[in-house]
């Protein structure tokens, strides 16, 4: 049956949908806030996503952790409601708000039923515009944050990431965790929290994605209702982060039977002319699914790990190429050697035509399937705007991927993949791994 399936596969390889059939409407609210909307009234609710660009990266060093703590407090009391009353109001409307803090953005995701949308919007407005930051809520939430920090400090995979970032970025906000340290978080004041609030949640830094049962006119009014009373302007963002880590291995001793590994080196910016070639290259190297070089060599061929992957991190202030995996202490040295060898091989020889074809087929076939459900679509729309992409990107994106040639990938592999610069942070009790190799 191999031949039959292969034949079917070839026959089917061409007519994949070339583009996502997504109709985006660009909306500007009466108050001047831009949003993208995919209107679909088949389910009576709307998903909204607000990205406030800047995020916890705006924390001053002496108040690192203030933004993370602040975002945890938005639903702990707002306007005339304490945390209990706010939660009860949310439950009564069956609306959900999730506030997440990242180093480049604060992301607020909301879902609202059509039947009570205005009331739900008023509640979200209260959280974003009139948070109370009551003393008891601050202490309660501070205690939770400290327990999260302590938990992360004993998690091998978190230790690996944190160590890598500290070694790579030093004092830049990218070099420290957004939760902060127990020491700093313990002495954050209400003033620090209010300052973080003023610095991060502003109208000039917000992008909005919406999908579901709402018209463009209704969306414009709804956005002003929620965000209209926020301050207009934010303070400047920190400058670019210098990636200051050289090749090598750092071992962090930790009592665990399996070592966690985080590795990488500098990457490539989204506006680089070779970005799409790098995107395809990463797919072959360690992109999702079971078929990447690293999954094949480290897991399938040798059984050295349960999973390994790499990704192009497009962090606003310092693009990188990163990866992670876990291997038992007695296997991890071998796994690292295999990663280094694959890195060197791709840098020198590039990829094969078959690998290029398979990667392009996967990436172009998978893309239209992503636009799946209101919540997902709202998120994609906000993310695209945060990257300054035009609406037409969705239509053209597969053509950019398809245009990548073997020579493009060879060129970008030689430039991007530098085995001698690859740094591995290994958290565990690795055998046969001297820190200097």
């Amino acid at each position, binding site marked *: 049956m191999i031949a039959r399936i292969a034949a079917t596969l070839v026959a089917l390889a061409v007519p994949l949908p070339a583009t996502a059939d997504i109709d985006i409407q660009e909306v500007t609210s009466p108050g001047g806030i831009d949003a993208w909307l995919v209107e679909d009234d088949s389910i009576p609710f709307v998903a909204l996503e607000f990205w406030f660009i800047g995020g916890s990266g705006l924390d001053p060093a002496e108040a690192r952790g203030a933004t993370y703590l602040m975002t945890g407090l938005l639903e702990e009391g707002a306007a005339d409601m304490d945390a209990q009353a706010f939660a009860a109001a949310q439950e009564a409307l069956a609306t959900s708000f999730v506030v997440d803090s990242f180093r480049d953005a604060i992301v607020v995701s909301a879902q609202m039923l059509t039947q009570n949308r205005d009331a739900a919007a008023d509640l979200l407005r209260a959280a974003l515009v009139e948070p109370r930051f009551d003393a008891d809520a601050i202490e309660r939430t501070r205690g939770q944050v400290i327990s999260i920090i302590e938990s992360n400090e004993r998690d091998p995979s978190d230790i690996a990431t944190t160590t890598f970032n500290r070694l790579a970025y030093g004092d830049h906000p990218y070099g420290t965790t957004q939760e902060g340290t127990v020491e700093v978080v313990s002495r954050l004041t209400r003033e620090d929290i209010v300052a973080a609030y003023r610095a991060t949640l502003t109208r000039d830094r917000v992008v909005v994605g919406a999908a579901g049962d709402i018209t463009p006119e209704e969306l414009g009014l709804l956005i002003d209702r929620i965000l209209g009373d926020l301050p207009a302007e934010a303070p400047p963002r920190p400058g670019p982060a210098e990636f200051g880590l050289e090749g090598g291995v750092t071992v962090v001793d930790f009592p665990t039977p*399996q070592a966690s590994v985080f590795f990488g080196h500098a990457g490539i910016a989204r506006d680089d002319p070779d970005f799409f070639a790098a995107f395809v290259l990463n797919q072959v190297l360690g992109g999702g699914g079971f078929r990447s070089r690293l999954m094949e060599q480290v897991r399938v061929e040798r059984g050295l790990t349960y999973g390994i992957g790499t990704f192009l991190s497009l962090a606003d202030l310092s693009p990188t190429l990163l990866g992670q995996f876990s291997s038992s202490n007695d296997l991890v040295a071998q796994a690292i050697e295999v990663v280094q060898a694959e890195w060197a091989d791709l840098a020198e020889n590039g990829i094969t035509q078959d690998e290029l074809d398979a990667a392009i087929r996967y990436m172009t076939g998978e893309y239209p*399937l992503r636009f799946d459900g209101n919540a997902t679509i709202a998120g994609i729309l906000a993310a695209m705007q945060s990257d300054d992409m035009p609406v037409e990107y969705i239509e053209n994106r597969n053509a950019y991927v398809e245009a990548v040639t073997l020579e493009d990938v060879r060129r970008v592999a030689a430039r991007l993949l530098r085995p001698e610069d690859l740094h591995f942070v290994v958290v565990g009790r690795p055998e046969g791994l001297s820190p200097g190799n």
Partner: protein
Amino acid sequence: MLHRLALALGLTLTPLAAQAAGEVEEFFLDNGMQVVVIEDHRTPAVTHMVWYRVGAADEPPGQSGIAHFLEHLMFKATDDMASGQFSEVVEANGGSDNAFTAWDYTGYFQRVAADRLGLMMQMEADRMRDLVFDPVEVATERSVILEERAQRTDSSPGALFNEQMRAALFLNHPYGIPIIGWRHEMEGLTLENARAFYETWYHPNNAILIVAGDVTPEEVRALAEEHYGPIPASAALPERLRPTEPPHIADRRVIYEDERVANPYVSIQMLAPVREPGDQREAAALVYLAELLGGGGPSALMSRQLQFEEERSLYAAAFYDSTSVDPSGFSLVNVPVPGVSLEEAEADIWRMVETFLEQGIDADHFARIQFQIEAGEIYEEDDTQGLARSWGVELTTGLTVADVEGWTAALAAVTPEDVMDAARRLFDDPSTVTGYLQRPAEPAPEAQPTEVNQ
């Protein structure tokens, strides 16, 4: 905020009433394969799933982990396809694929463009009966599952603690054995074990096909008859006869110490009834009980009192799994603030249970939960893959399509009196397992990470 803490602790609540809802089309092929179709025409994609009514709780004694090991081996060669080619073809068609194993089921799924559905069925039907077991690949893949166990269980004190808690809770039922397997038994799993498990259970009359997305039932029927229809039913399919629990007459205690523990906590677990075919009332009442007592949000009694009023807990919640073949667990968890001991945290849990039994249910809170369950039906429609997965869990745990379609109505029919009755039955002199997850008394100095630079 609370959801972040719950994530950091590895304690996550299932969203309220995250069960399948709405209407589906159901039919059976002549060989007994059950087929369920969920239509969603918003995106030109389908999720194609085949679920087997077999899981870790159906494993032969001494072979813990074999159901999950076989799931991994299903991605190797068949008589017609090379090892790894299954995923290769899926990815070459822009799709993604994976699989999962639980105590009661094993499932395989792909998500692809809707016009690739036939190809997925062709390959899935092929590996239902024609898997080839290669000794070298079996040995390598055994190493992969041992690494998986190291990553998911051995690297996490919370996961090790849960494993010990379940082992203590179930005296006789295989729900007490970890899905991934005990390490010493995993190391001994053989090709023959995997083959025997496959030959016993992987047949169309033990499988459920679920297709969700941009298709019609007629299209699914035609393709399913073409690809799965020719596979003969097994005449020797065993019943799922599992060892059952004796009466629990003794309380048990589990103390697990691990120097990697950051936030010590206490967990109290007891057996609870689950949804039964034709009778979901008790389970529906227990869903409300878990939500009212410890739903995780600030409104539930445990968090309202222990986190907000008294500030004695970082996190306090109740967990109930309503959907499994055999009775499963109801658990109560309390993570005390520093300075409150686990003994006190344990007493706090029981104080909350007693308060609940004495005070009864606030009518407003009850009404809000009812409305959230109603609204949940709307929100769940947005996530077709999630719906497909819920259907799979429900059907492989013995429920019928009528039960699943009636679940929302069963939830809507629950009254506060039903919840109080269910609470009294559950908490009236239960035999419990009480567990402490804690650090050793003197923290070993090596638990502090030390770093060696290049």
